[in-house]
């Protein structure tokens, strides 16, 4: 009983603290993700207020957080959208992968880490934060902008790529042999492809199976299916997160719509717990050691993201200002980078990785949304006008053939 009271007091304190942080964050226009990470740092070992009794509970909550983050991500897209996007935006996605994953991998090797850590860091620097970026675009009133579909399709491709990357990473982290790794990779890819195909063909039938009219039954049904499939995916070493993502994709129509409304509060709760948990597993004392490398990595990969967005928008026939808007909007890394780092930390890869990932995500997720506002400033517009004035004959995007 004594433990229970401490657990409740600790959890209550943590959640109250998060609520306060979230409120402060919203006031200054900051995403809550960095604040939750910082809170986790404070509550963790070596932090200001270490937790004693609730760590285990938070660990399970964090798992739930990842699963809910991913199922909600899947619910946002329909399978048709994903595949349709794949056809039209594959080149942009490829540029994105090369420009952003390679620097991460190279950086890890430079730090003297092994290739597993390089694979992990490649993923961390590759994926932009869909949640943060969608929020930034909406806050800046850019949803109607013509470069916005470019930004969104890069995010979709990344999310889809994660459905293949995570199982690979899970297999590698499990330290299985090459043959077993290849087997689980094949299983993973086949599962993803089959689920996508089934979702496109029979998405309506699957959704009809879970009736949308009873809120309670729907909530329990969707959550049940998600956990069940995640668990099975985990057993198959496809990663629980991917299982959840696929469940989200398979659901569509009114079921998806209502499920989003029902799951959002749960997702908010457990995702917060997840970010806190990740902060918990980082030693604040290690942050200063990795601060400089994290800063260098952040500057490098934020620049490559700008280039990604610039090239993607250029392909879509967007004019110069829009290309910079697309590039600068793509910079923040967030939930996915933490999910990847979380997997690696749980598997015991490179002890410094957690603190590096924390610092890296903190830097990009705080500065990214701020820098995204640059193209709206007068001086930036004036600078672009001067530049376009000196280069004759490309006021229209179609006529621009120079880089």
């Amino acid at each position: 009983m004594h433990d229970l009271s401490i657990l409740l007091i600790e959890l209550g304190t943590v959640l109250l603290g998060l609520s306060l942080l979230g409120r402060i964050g919203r006031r200054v226009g900051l995403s809550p993700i960095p604040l939750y990470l910082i809170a986790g740092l404070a509550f963790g070992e070596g932090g200001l207020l270490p937790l004693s009794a609730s760590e285990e509970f938070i660990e399970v909550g964090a798992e739930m957080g990842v699963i809910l983050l991913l199922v909600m991500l899947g619910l946002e897209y329909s399978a048709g959208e994903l595949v349709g996007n794949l056809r039209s935006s594959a080149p942009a996605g490829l540029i994105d992968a090369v420009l952003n994953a390679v620097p991460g991998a190279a950086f890890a090797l430079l730090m003297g880490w092994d290739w597993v850590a390089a694979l992990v860091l490649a993923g961390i620097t590759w994926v932009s934060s869909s949640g943060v970026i969608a929020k930034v675009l909406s806050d800046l009133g850019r949803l109607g902008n013509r470069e916005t579909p470019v930004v969104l399709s890069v995010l979709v491709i990344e999310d889809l790529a994660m459905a293949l990357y995570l199982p690979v990473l899970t297999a590698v982290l499990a330290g299985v042999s090459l043959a077993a790794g290849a087997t689980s990779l094949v299983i993973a890819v086949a599962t993803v492809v089959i689920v996508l195909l089934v979702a496109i063909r029979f998405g309506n039938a699957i959704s009809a199976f879970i009736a949308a009219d009873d809120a309670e039954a729907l909530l329990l049904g969707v959550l049940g299916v998600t956990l069940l499939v995640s668990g099975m995916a985990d057993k198959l070493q496809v990663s629980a997160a991917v299982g959840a993502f696929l469940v989200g994709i398979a659901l569509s129509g009114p079921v998806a719509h209502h499920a989003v409304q029902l799951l959002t509060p749960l997702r908010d709760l457990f995702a917060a717990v997840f970010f806190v948990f990740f902060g918990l597993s980082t030693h604040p004392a290690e942050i200063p050691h990795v601060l400089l490398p994290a800063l260098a990595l952040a500057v490098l990969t934020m620049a490559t993201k700008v280039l990604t967005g610039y090239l993607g928008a250029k392909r879509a026939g967007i004019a110069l200002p829009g290309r910079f808007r697309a590039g600068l909007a793509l910079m923040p890394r967030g939930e996915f980078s933490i999910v990847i780092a979380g997997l690696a930390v749980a598997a015991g890869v490179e002890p410094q990785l957690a603190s590096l990932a924390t610092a890296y995500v903190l830097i990009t997720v705080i500065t990214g949304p701020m820098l995204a506002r640059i193209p709206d400033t007068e001086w930036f517009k004036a600078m672009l006008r001067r530049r376009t004035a000196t280069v004759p004959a490309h006021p229209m995007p179609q006529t621009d053939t120079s880089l």
Partner: protein
Amino acid sequence: MRVRVEQTALPGIGVRHDLVMASGRRIGVVSHRSGRRDLVLYDQDDPDACIASLPLTDDEAEALADLLGASLMLGQLAGLRSQAAGLLTEQISIPAGSPWAHRRLGDTRARTRTGASIVAVLRDREVIASPAPSFAFQTGDVVVVVGTREGLDGVAAILAETEPDG
């Protein structure tokens, strides 16, 4: 006179429709999955960027659509009539202080006296189609009349009379 409307999917958000107006300006609507709609107006210097993004509630969007759609309908009606039988359409407003405010449509005896018909009344962004003789005018109403030139002038004269019983 069809306008080309471009549709763009916004994965995870919804869909955007936009069109380039005859004036060269671009205007669009972002329809969110949640049912929210944003009316967006694009920048003249930077046609990729929207300078205004106005979130509309369902009711607001419907009212705006009615407003825009109604004028379109009346415009088409006017075109049709003048082509078909030399009939014209005119919109006559009931200004504040008009003796016709709160009086009934039947009292105008417009059709008997001029041959022109009152086919609709526009009130508060709404179209009241084929109003009955018992329909009572209010100030601010816009009366839509169909008839010959003389008929329309006659109705305008009746509605402008200071002493309605004449």
